[in-house]
C-alpha cells in the first residue's frame, strides 16, 4: 500500500503540469545528438586514440630519424620526407575515426536505441543530418589542431638537422605545407563521415567496419597487382587515395591534384550519405 501511495503522488503531477514544451526541430535534434555523442565513453576514448595516434606517430619517427641523422646514408637522407613523416599518424587515426563514424549509426541499431530515436523523431532524416553535423564538427575541431600539432612537433624535433647545408625541417609557410597539414584534418573528417554513411546503410557494426577497412586498407594495395597501366588509371580515383592527394606537396605521378582529390572523396562520401538517407527513410526499423 505504501508503494502505491508513493507512486501515485508524482503521477498526478504529470497531469498538473501539462508541459507546453516545443516540437521537433533540427536544432533540437542537433542538441540531442550532441548529448548522445558526449555521453558515451567509447566516443571519448576513440577520439582520444585518433588524436593521440596522429601526434604520437608523427613525433616518434621524427625523433628516431633525428637521433640517427648524423649516421644515416645520403640515400636515406634524400628519401626522408619531413612532411610525410609528420602526417603518417593519419593512417592510424583514419581507422579510429572511421570506425567511430560507423559506430555512431550501427551502435543505435545493435542496442535497439534506434527505436527510441526514431520514435522521438519519426521523420528520421533530421537525425542523420544532426549526426553528420555534430560528429563532423567535433572531428574537424579535433583533427585539424591534431595535424597542426603533429606537424609542428615533428618539425621541432627535426629542426637543426641539415641536408646539403639546409635545415630539413619544413615551415608551415613553405609552399603547399599549410594546405597539406590542414587538409589532413579535413581528410580525417571526411573519413569519419564516410564511415557514418556506411554504418547507416549496413546497420551492423561488423559489416560497417569491414566495408570501411576494405575501402581504406584492402582495395588500394590490391590494385598494385594489376598491370601498372590499369593500376595507374584506377587508383587515383579510389576514395581514400583521392582524398590523400590533399596531403601531397610534390604532386607525384598518377595522383589527382590536391583539391580535386579531396573533392572527389567528399563527393563519394556525399553519395554514400545520400544512399543512406534514402534507405533510412524507406526501411523498417
Amino acid at each position, binding site marked *: 500500500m505504501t*508503494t*502505491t501511495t508513493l*507512486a*501515485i503522488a*508524482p*503521477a*498526478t*503531477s*504529470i*497531469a498538473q*503540469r*501539462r*508541459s507546453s*514544451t*516545443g*516540437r*521537433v*526541430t533540427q536544432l*533540437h*535534434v542537433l*542538441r*540531442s*545528438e550532441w*548529448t*548522445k555523442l558526449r*555521453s*558515451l*565513453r*567509447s566516443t571519448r576514448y576513440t577520439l582520444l586514440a585518433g588524436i593521440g595516434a596522429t601526434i604520437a606517430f608523427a613525433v616518434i619517427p621524427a625523433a628516431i630519424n633525428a637521433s640517427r641523422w648524423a649516421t644515416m646514408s645520403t640515400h636515406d637522407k634524400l628519401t626522408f620526407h619531413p612532411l610525410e613523416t609528420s602526417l603518417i599518424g593519419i593512417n592510424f587515426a583514419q581507422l579510429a575515426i572511421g570506425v567511430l563514424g560507423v559506430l555512431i549509426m550501427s*551502435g*543505435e541499431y545493435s*542496442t*535497439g*536505441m*534506434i*527505436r*527510441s530515436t*526514431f*520514435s*522521438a*523523431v*519519426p*521523420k528520421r532524416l533530421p537525425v542523420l543530418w544532426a549526426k553528420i553535423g555534430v560528429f563532423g564538427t567535433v572531428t574537424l575541431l579535433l583533427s585539424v589542431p591534431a595535424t597542426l600539432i603533429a606537424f609542428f612537433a615533428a618539425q621541432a624535433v627535426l629542426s637543426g638537422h641539415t641536408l646539403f647545408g639546409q635545415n630539413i625541417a619544413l615551415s608551415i609557410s613553405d609552399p603547399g605545407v599549410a594546405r597539406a597539414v590542414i587538409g589532413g584534418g579535413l581528410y580525417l573528417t571526411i573519413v569519419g563521415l564516410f564511415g557514418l554513411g556506411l554504418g547507416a546503410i549496413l546497420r551492423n557494426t561488423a559489416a560497417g567496419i569491414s566495408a570501411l577497412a576494405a575501402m581504406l586498407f584492402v582495395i588500394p594495395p590490391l590494385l598494385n597487382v594489376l598491370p601498372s597501366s590499369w593500376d595507374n588509371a584506377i587508383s587515383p580515383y579510389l576514395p581514400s587515395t583521392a582524398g590523400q592527394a590533399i596531403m601531397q606537396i610534390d604532386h607525384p605521378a598518377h595522383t589527382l591534384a590536391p583539391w580535386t582529390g579531396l573533392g572527389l572523396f567528399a563527393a563519394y562520401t556525399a553519395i554514400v550519405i545520400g544512399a543512406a538517407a534514402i534507405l533510412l527513410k*524507406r526501411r*523498417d*526499423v
Partner: protein
Amino acid sequence: MIEIRQLTKRYGETVAVDDLTFTVKPGMVTGFLGPNGSGKSTTMRLILGLDAPSAGEVTVNGKRYADHRAPMHEVGALLEARSIHTGRSAFSHLLALAQTHGIPRSRVDEVIELVGLESVARKRAGGFSLGMGQRLGIGAALLGDPEVVMLDEPVNGLDPDGIRWIRDLMRQLAAEGRTVFLSSHLMSEMALTADHLIVIGRGRLIADVSVAEFIRRHSRNVVLVRSPDADELARIVAGPGVQVDVVEPGLIEVGGVTALEIGDQAAAHRLVLHELTPQQASLEEAFMSLTRDEVEYHGTSHNQQTHENEVLAA
C-alpha cells in the same frame, strides 16, 4: 485515440498483421491481448511508424504518427524489445530524448523520480536489471506527458510492487482522460487493469469487447459432481444448454446448470452425491480457448481441441 483501419503487415511470406481494424479510445485502459507471436508488437511498431504498413492505415489523434510536429507529446511508447543504448546512463538517455522536443532538464529529473530510478540514474543502462530497464523505458514513454500511452508487455520483469505501481499509474493516466493501450499475453493481468480488450491471434482480430462483457461471455460456470450414480445423474440433468463432461468414472463436470438444481434433481431421484462443487473457469482458460486456434506454435493443442469438441458434443 488510436485508429487502425484494415492494417496489414507482411514480412516476406509471413503475415504478421492481417487486416486489423479497431479503435483505442481515450479515458480508459485498453488491453491488447494475444499469445506470443500474435502480432501485438508489430502492431505497436506500425502505430509508431517504425515499420511501414503493407496495407491499411494507422492514425494517432487524427494524424499519422510521423506527421505530428511533437510526436512525443502525442504518444509515449514502451516497446517490448530494448530500445536503450547500453553504454549510456539513464539520465543521458532520457535527456537526449527530451532534447529532441526541447523538453527541459527538470522534466527529466521529474520522470527519473517518478519511475524510481534516482539512485541509478547516472549509471550505465547496460548494467540494469530487466525491471530497471522497464522502468527506464516507462520513464521515456512519459517524458513528453503524452495524450496516448502505449506500453508493450510493461509488467515484464517487474516485481509485485512494480506491477502494482504500473497498474495504478495506468489507471491514473486513463482517469486523466488519456488513451492507455497496454499489451500482454496474460489475461489475468488485463482483467485487473483494463476496461476494454482487443484480442488478436495470428495477426487477426478475435475480440473487441469490454472486460466485463468478455468475462460474462467467456467464463463458463461448471459444477463438479462426484457420485456413484454419475451416469444416471448425467442423463437426468441433460437438456438444451447443458454440457456434461466425464472426467473419470464417477466424476462429471456439468455446465449450464447450477449446483442447487443438480442437488435437487439428485434428491428427487434418490441418487447419492459424494461431492457437489461449483467451479468458475478462469479467465486465463477462457482466453486460451478463445485463441487456441490462433496460436502459432501448438504444444498438445490437437488433443485439447478434440477433447473440447467432445465436451461440446456431449
